[in-house]
Structure formats: C-alpha cells, structure tokens
C-alpha cells in the first residue's frame, strides 16, 4: 500500500489502540494511523501496523511485518501494548489512497470491536460509516476473523503468556507473595 506521508496530526504512546481510533473518528480523519508496538519481547516488535481512515472510519489494515492485510493485519498489530501511534492526515486530492485493495479492507466497526474491545466506539464508528460501507453485515452477523487470526498465532500467544508469567513472578516478589508461587 503506497500512502503519501501527509501531515502528522498526532503522535503519542498509548496503552491500547482505542484512543487512536477514537481520535481518528472524532477528527473525521482522512488519512492513516501507524501503530508501532513498544514491546521488545514480541517477535514482530520492529514492524508496524497501519490502519487507514476515510472521514474517521477505518477502511484498510495492513501489517509490514507479516505482509498480511484486512482482519489478519488487525490481529498482527495486536500486542498487549503500549504502542507508539502516529496519525497522519492526507489532503483531499489523496483521498483515494486510503481505500486500498479489497484484500486489505476491514468492516467499519471491526477494529474498535475486536482490536480495541470497545463496543461503544464500534457503534459510533458504524453510525458514522456511509451505508455502502456494509454497516449491515456488522449488525447482523459479526466478523470474528481478526480474533480468530489472533488465536491462530501460537507464537504471539506464547509470547503474551510468557510475558505474563514473568510479570507475575516479578510482582509476587515485590509484593511479598513469592512464597505463594508454585
């Protein structure tokens, strides 16, 4: 996906993707967000996830590490956080650039619903989506593709579990609970 650089409108480190999605929606951003995980323990820490927006509503997703697009890319960019996120706005002339190929597309509410786990944001996003964007398919049958793709990634799940186990032990020692550990 060739995206012009556009104008940087926000650059933050955030705990989860919801804030960036919400900001894009509130600003009616036409442009894209670049999510870069800060968690060096995960194998794809050097890669980035990109979500494009048309008037604040997600259109496409792709991941530079796996080369995958659509719901799979949402799963690929999901890490336990934090992320560094850049929001970039494109001029009206470049609007077509955010629409990408069909295999990169995501339904309007999928990122908020499945990646951010924020049903209210998903509802707001669907309400803001033009009717031709397929709001219907998300209110009837829901796409769980991103969640399934996440669960198919054994390596990432193992990394999350290992990280949690290490964190549990470290904190147990800090809290004086280490004698309770198995």
């Amino acid at each position, binding site marked *: 996906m060739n995206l012009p650089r556009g104008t940087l409108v926000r650059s933050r480190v955030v705990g989860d993707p919801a804030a960036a999605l919400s900001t894009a929606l509130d600003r009616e951003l036409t442009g894209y967000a670049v999510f870069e995980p800060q968690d060096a323990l995960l194998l794809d820490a050097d890669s980035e996830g990109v979500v494009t927006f048309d008037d604040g509503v997600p259109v496409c997703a792709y991941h530079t590490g796996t080369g995958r697009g659509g719901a799979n890319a949402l799963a690929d960019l999901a890490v336990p956080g934090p992320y560094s996120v850049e929001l970039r706005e494109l001029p009206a002339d470049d609007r077509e650039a955010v629409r990408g190929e069909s295999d990169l597309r995501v339904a309007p509410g999928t990122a908020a619903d499945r990646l951010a786990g924020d049903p209210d944001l998903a509802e707001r996003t669907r309400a803001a989506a033009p009717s031709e964007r397929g709001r219907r398919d998300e209110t009837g049958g*829901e796409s769980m593709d991103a969640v399934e793709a996440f669960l198919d990634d054994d390596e990432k799940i193992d990394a999350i579990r290992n990280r949690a186990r290490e964190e549990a032990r470290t904190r147990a020692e800090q809290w004086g609970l280490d004698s309770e*550990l198995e």
Partner: protein
Amino acid sequence: MVEAFAVASGKGGTGKTTTTVALGMALADEYDVTIVDADTGMANLLFHTGLTDADATLHDLLVADGNEDGRDDVTVEDAVYDRFGMRIVPCGTSLDAFEAADPDRLREVVAELAADADVLLLDSPAALGSKSAVLPIVLADRAVVVVQPTIPALSDGLKVQEYAHSYGTDTAGVVFNKVHDPDAAESVAEKAERYFDGPTLATVPDADAARSARRAGEPLLAHAPESAAARAYRTAAADLDVRAGESDDVADRFRSAVVPESP
C-alpha cells in the same frame, strides 16, 4: 467441604459480577453458596443484589481495629446477607474505606466464610496491578475466567490465567460473556480452548435482560430466569465440576496464605 473460585478477568466491563451472581444462584440449587465482592476498590455486587442499603459490608471487616474509618463491632456474620438462596457478602463503595482496608484481613474473612460453604465465589478485581487485586486469585482454588470475543479481552484473560497458575490456582473454565453473535463466537471459543486449561463453560449472549436486572438490583436468574443469558449461565454452572475438599484444610490454607501488609 468447600471450593473457592475467583471469578476473574483482566479487563473491566466483561460482566464478572453478573457472572458471579448468576453462577452463584445456579449452583445454589445444589450447594451451599457464598459470594463475596472481593473487588474492594470498585465494588458493585451490592447493586446487583439489592443490597445498596447494607449496613455492614466487607469493608467493615477489612478495616483495622481502632482505625477511625472502621467499626470494631462488626463480625463476619453481620456482613453476610441471605438473599436469592445464597449467602452474599457485599463490599462498600467508599474510597476512604478502601484506602483504610487492610487486605491482610481478607484471608481471615474468607477462611471464616469457607467453614459454612460448599462453594465460595470471589468476584475479583479487573486489574492485576496491585497486591489487593491479586489476592483473590492467590486465595482461590480455581479461577473462572470471564472474557468477551475480542483480542484485548482474550489477551487479558490469558494473562489472568498465567497469574493464577503462578500461584497454583488452576483454571476451572472460561465464560464468553456479552456475546452479540453466539454463532460467530463459537469458532473463537473453540480456538481459545487450546490456550485455556479449562473448558468453555458457556457463551452468554449480550442481553437486555442482564442490563434490566442490574437496573432492578436483582440477579439475572431472578429477574429473567427464562432469558437466553440465564439459561447459558445455568448450563455453565452445570458444567462446572465443583471439587469438594475438606473445609478445615481450606480454611487453614487461607489463613496460612502470605498476604500483603498494605493495599
């Protein structure tokens, strides 16, 4: 005979309290059940069970003797309310009381409650970032992990499981809650079973009945017993293989748990 379950999730808003109350009511058909609001920083069990006017709560039991926020005259039995076929121990919502609470006392309270129960359900905090938040998982025999079919909820649910396992607390099962499309979530539940050490106990549909029950201050199973969500919880309770132990042993274990000195 008692088994203590922590009803836990790493993420807020998954419906832990609704799940705790619903599992408790369903299990109460067969067992002596006590449910405890162990989420002492963000208590809400009282709102689900019509106990907003409760005089004595868990907070009173956790505040150290002599503390100006505490009441020395409250016994464990004073904070237990018989409702809906269960024994319910609500927690207050005062931030001052939370700050004055000594989590060290939770083990004594749980040990005392264990003596009179077959099943203890500990409604646990949504976070894992403090000693008091982790304590219910440390004390429990097993955890029921409540998730939604989203990436962060599953990721956090797996994190809870790892914390629980670190303390020797096994996974009793997973409840998929607030599911908008149960058919679509089925494949997610199947895939998730590879990573969770307990079975999927239920896929509970997102329901107006649960919200309406909460507004009415009633458990879902009392408010809308024939709703699809209530049926799902009864199925979950039936699939939960309660393992009886000796209550004395369990009480001793709670008492011997090394617990933090401050929240």
